[in-house]
């Protein structure tokens, strides 16, 4: 039963991710005084791309063609670790948050290789920038997550969420620091403004898009889908760790239904915040990203310090 729910939850992740992307786009359009495309446009785009024949450069190696499958699978596997509508699922019990970060790193590794594989200047440039940013983002992310896991004394997300639920609404300075650190990292990792601009056509300014410039057809669909998933994963992570209320602790239709509604509501609110911030700021200069992620790391560190100083009872 619980395995079935775990599988269903992962499928839910995959099916809802484009909807979140559509909602985010809708919010951004409205904030820019524009008419917005339908919420379901990302689904249509994915279907359109899937039906198109991929065009692969003549000198691309096998790596280029399998990378989209690896990236998508690794992202889906990362999604199994994160509790979406219910805690205490077997998949999240078998892997912890470090595994999730590992899956992301694995996907990124292949994405960067695929960017290099095709041999264009843009791909290499994108890969180099992506690796620069990730080398700064990953420590910051781990630092933020370690702060949380120290409170719950576990690196297992499911257990940590249950712990927060059981504690009730307690204001922890360490959580506030960690929340902001994680938000900063999430923006950088999912390639949103001000770190990267997913909507740009300017090759020279791209990070994520530069690596996937040569992809088309179903390959592109998989990579797009994976990045939508990644955006949702970070959203769920932030929503469920810091505001876990509503998530199902027992498995029946009613609690699971509430869990689904709760997470959709939380994600919708988060997306509004993201859309507002993307409307308010311009993209930063590339070399400001290190300061930005350094700040995220510092927040994570402060979170951990404040946990040790203020919250650890001897």
């Amino acid at each position: 039963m619980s395995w079935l729910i775990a599988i269903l939850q992962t499928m839910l992740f995959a099916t809802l991710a484009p909807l979140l992307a559509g909602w985010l786009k809708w919010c951004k359009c409205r904030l820019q005084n524009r008419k917005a495309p339908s919420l379901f446009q990302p689904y249509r785009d994915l279907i359109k791309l899937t039906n198109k024949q991929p065009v692969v450069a003549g000198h691309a190696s096998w790596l280029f063609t399998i990378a989209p499958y690896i990236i998508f699978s690794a992202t889906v596997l990362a999604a199994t670790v994160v509790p979406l509508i219910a805690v205490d699922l077997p998949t999240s019990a078998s892997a912890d948050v470090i595994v999730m970060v590992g899956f992301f790193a694995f996907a990124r590794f292949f994405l960067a290789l695929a960017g290099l594989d095709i041999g264009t200047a843009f791909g290499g440039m994108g890969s180099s920038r992506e690796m620069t940013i990730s080398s700064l983002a990953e420590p910051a992310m781990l630092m933020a997550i370690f702060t949380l896991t120290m409170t719950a004394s576990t690196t297992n997300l499911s257990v940590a969420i249950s712990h927060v639920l059981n504690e009730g609404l307690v204001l922890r300075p360490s959580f506030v620091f960690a929340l902001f650190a994680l938000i900063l990292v999430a923006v950088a990792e999912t390639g949103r403004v001000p770190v990267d601009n997913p909507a740009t056509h300017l090759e020279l300014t791209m990070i994520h898009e530069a690596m996937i410039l040569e992809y088309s057809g179903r390959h592109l669909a998989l990579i797009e889908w994976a990045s939508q998933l990644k955006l949702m994963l970070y959203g769920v992570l932030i929503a469920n760790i810091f505001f876990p209320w509503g998530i199902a602790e027992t498995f029946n239709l009613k609690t699971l239904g509430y869990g689904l509604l709760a997470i959709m509501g939380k994600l919708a609110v988060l997306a509004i915040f993201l859309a507002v911030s993307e409307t308010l700021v311009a993209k930063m200069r590339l070399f400001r990203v290190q300061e930005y992620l350094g700040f995220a790391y510092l927040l994570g560190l402060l979170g951990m310090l404040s946990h040790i100083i203020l919250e650890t009872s001897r």
Partner: protein
Amino acid sequence: MNHAQSDWTVDFLKQLNTTGCEVEQIDIASTALWQIESNHWQQFAELALQQDLRWVAGWAEHIQDRFFINACFEKQGVYVLLRTIVNAAKLDLPSQATVYPAASRSERHTQDMFGINFIGHPDNRRWTRHKAWPKHSYPLHKDFPVQGTPEPITLPDMDYPFIKAHGAGVYEIPVGPVHAGIIEPGHFRFQAVGELILNLEERLGYVHKGIEKIAEGRTPESLARLAGRVSGDATIGHCWAACMAMEQAAGIEIPPRAALIRGILAERERVANHLGDMGAICNDVAFMFAQMQFTRLRELWLRTNAKVFNHRLLMDRIIPGGVVCDLSDSSCALIKQDIVQLRKELSDILPAVDLNSSLEDRLYTAGYLPPETAAAFGTLGYVGRASGQDKDVRRDAPYPPYDQVIFKVPVETQGDVASRFWMRYKEIKVALKLIEQFIAHLASGDILAEWQTPPTGSESLGMVEGWRGEIVTYIRFGADNKIARFYPRDPSILNWPALERLVLDNIVPDFPVCNKSLNGSYSGNDL
């Protein structure tokens, strides 16, 4: 004012005579034409530089077995057309590019189109010729067919000798000619270390349409249409410059009302393009909100164009002798109301742009063009004026209707992307005031003067401040009211080289916004 201005030509002619450079002065409509011997060509440029003359344009013409080589210089609003004649037997001429870097690409263009060998040219690689026509064939020779010599398949242009950079960690980024956005084609070759730009080399010419060739033998009306398509976004500027040159050659005065309407058209074009550019600069740093707002304002502005002038982009509104469409009182009211509306909207949007620190961080100090470099390359328009080049044809060599109005030309020395952004805003403000003044001055009367066939061989230069800056157009008539030579000098020809300089020491991802802040025309450059 006029006396003081013409003084420098008198002094300069004396100086030329004492140095042994004989000048034959020929009277043509509008400008002084000085003809010199070809062996003094470079010497003239050296003396001109000492006198702070600005190099404006250079072009050639094939007449029977001789080649007329022309260069245009300017100081204090007085233009001088310099000419020398070389024989087809020996197509050698000392280069002026050694003295004026601005002349470099123009001479390379002349070299490709006429086969003239500029001796001592610092960089005599081919420029306009890619692989569309063979090496020793020259499209602007009279015996070259108008339809060209097209091959079934144009060869790929593989062996252009780009400047190379060597060393550990230096890598090359080729960008274009096909870009991801909807812009014109052009190739940019970067040498970078990490993200730092060591060198940028432009390779243009992908939009070469043979405009100079297909202009030959056209009637004035037909040429005006062609001129309006030299660069689509500057259609009024080019069309006006061409018509001005043709009218001067034919000795026609346009009616005052037509001049005022031309002024309104030109300023409307300036406002529309500046609005679009300000939005595009914001878009290049992912500040989409401002882009959408500026795009909306531009669209509303263009819709008024459609209502009042029956064309959104104002193409073919100017014809030889005047303008096509008159302005009714209700149209004037609509334009005035539009201006009030635009001012109000801009005063709402610009504080949001000005106070945004993330935008400020991207625009300030990026793409700095020092005033000395701007002066050396003869940089024009908002690019020049943001780097201390106080040049504006409307004020320096006023032509109707600008001789009737008083206006300020904004100049800054800040020279960065932000400066070029705000320069556009200042120019919009000036343009709006100008439109209001023109409407207030609008005299009743004709909008079209009758055309008279100009004498064979009559020539003239038309100078107009287009929205990108000074446009200089040379026209020479042949027999029977037909054009013999048409050369439009778009400001982009002088502004493109400045881009190669201003991106140095910037990082690669800042190039798009630097490029957009300059916004050169590819089509106007490639001809």
